[in-house]
């Protein structure tokens, strides 16, 4: 977005609210929605990539060492990765604590 969404006027919208700027969803930081965050215990991770596959926001990234980690800028804390992890090495931790 050329400017934040809450500052765009109706005149600045394309007809039909067509979005012409490619990949601008990246600028919407959904991580602020989160009440819990996934914490990975790397010792239990078998690098299978199930968390990467299931993440609905595609925010799980693979690090150079092969382990996976959620990008907290976008992670909404839905917990699907923790639920699907076959070894149970991902725990959801409250953001309050």
């Amino acid at each position, binding site marked *: 977005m050329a400017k934040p969404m809450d500052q765009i006027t*109706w005149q600045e*919208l*394309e007809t*039909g*609210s*067509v979005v012409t700027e490619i990949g601008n969803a990246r600028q919407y930081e959904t991580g602020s929605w989160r009440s819990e965050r996934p914490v990975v215990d790397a010792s239990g991770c078998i690098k299978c990539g199930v968390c990467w596959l299931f993440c609905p926001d595609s925010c799980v990234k693979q690090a150079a060492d092969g382990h996976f980690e959620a990008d907290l800028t976008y992670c909404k804390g839905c917990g699907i990765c923790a639920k699907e992890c076959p070894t149970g090495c991902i725990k959801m931790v409250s953001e309050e604590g």
Partner: protein
Amino acid sequence: MAKVRKGIEVSIAMSEAVAQANVDVIAAYPITPQTHIVEHLSEIVADGHLDAEYVPVESEHSAMSVCCGSAAVGARTFTSTSSQGLALMSEIFTIAAAMRLPIVMALANRSLSSPLSIWNDHSDVMSVRDAGWIHVFVESGQESYDHVFTSFRIAEDPAVMLPVAINLDGFILTHMIEPIWFEDDETIRKYLPDMKMKNALHPDNPVSMGCFGMPEIYTEAQMSRQVGVVNSYDTIVKAWKEWGDLTGRYYHPVETYKADDAEYCIVTMGSYGETAMEVVDALRAEGEKVGVIKIRLWRPFPFEDFRKAVAGKKTLIVIDRAISFGGPGGPVASELRSALYGQANAPKIVNYVAGLAGRDVARADFRNIILEGKAKAAAGDVDGFTLYGVRG
């Protein structure tokens, strides 16, 4: 095709018009009384007379979905439906308008179930009144043919980019055989250039359509739609004027018949205008100062044209073809009352709902409605509406 006058069923004439308009995609599911329009188009394509994709979808929801996809890539797109079919496509119907996709639809107006009925009234179109389409009502076969071209011209104008529904009364118009002037292909080509869509889907120019909208942006998106529909008025009037200049057949958002010196007028929308004019002729011969006002453009509603047409009238007798259950009257009368609210010397409005699900409203009925409506207005009985002819 050369310019020629033919005696032809209105549905068939409309399909021929769609072919002359050189559409690229037709997606439709057959439903009475729209059937002949799409069946004949299917034949035209199958016989190789029109280079178009005819997509025989499995439902109306899919029909409108296909139409959205095809219009999104900049293809000239046509569909047609009625009643339950419109109800089934209503989810995508609204999306087509919001995404500003210039689809043209022949909406063969039919009552909504239940009781299940295949016959004509306006309950189907009124159920989608606020979806953001342009709605035009026609009253004859010639108008049905003509409005195919004007509607594509309006829909695809870069200043408009909105879907247009051509409302024609089911059976009363769709199945009528009338003499209709066909324009020659050269005239059509001149009037209706190829569509040029600014943000059409194309791999070379990737865009996203129909995106998620948070509360921060939804209001602005709706404002853009509201302004788009209101501003389409200028293009509509211009497109009709240019069609008139080419063919001699001029159309206006609000049309009148013997209304200039009339003290009171009957207001119609759709095919009832023809019968109303005949009855007004007869009443005029008896000395009644009565005229007809016909609403051709329903959305965007032509407030100024309407106010101008009714200036100086004492009474308007409005015939609606649908009920707004528990509401203030039929949808047309509600609209007109709203248009006149607070205006100085506004005429009184008496509202009749008549002709539901094809119940015949003949000349004698128009006469009854007009004279009874005049008496009601004189007696100050102007609230709500009367369901004409209901037993009990």
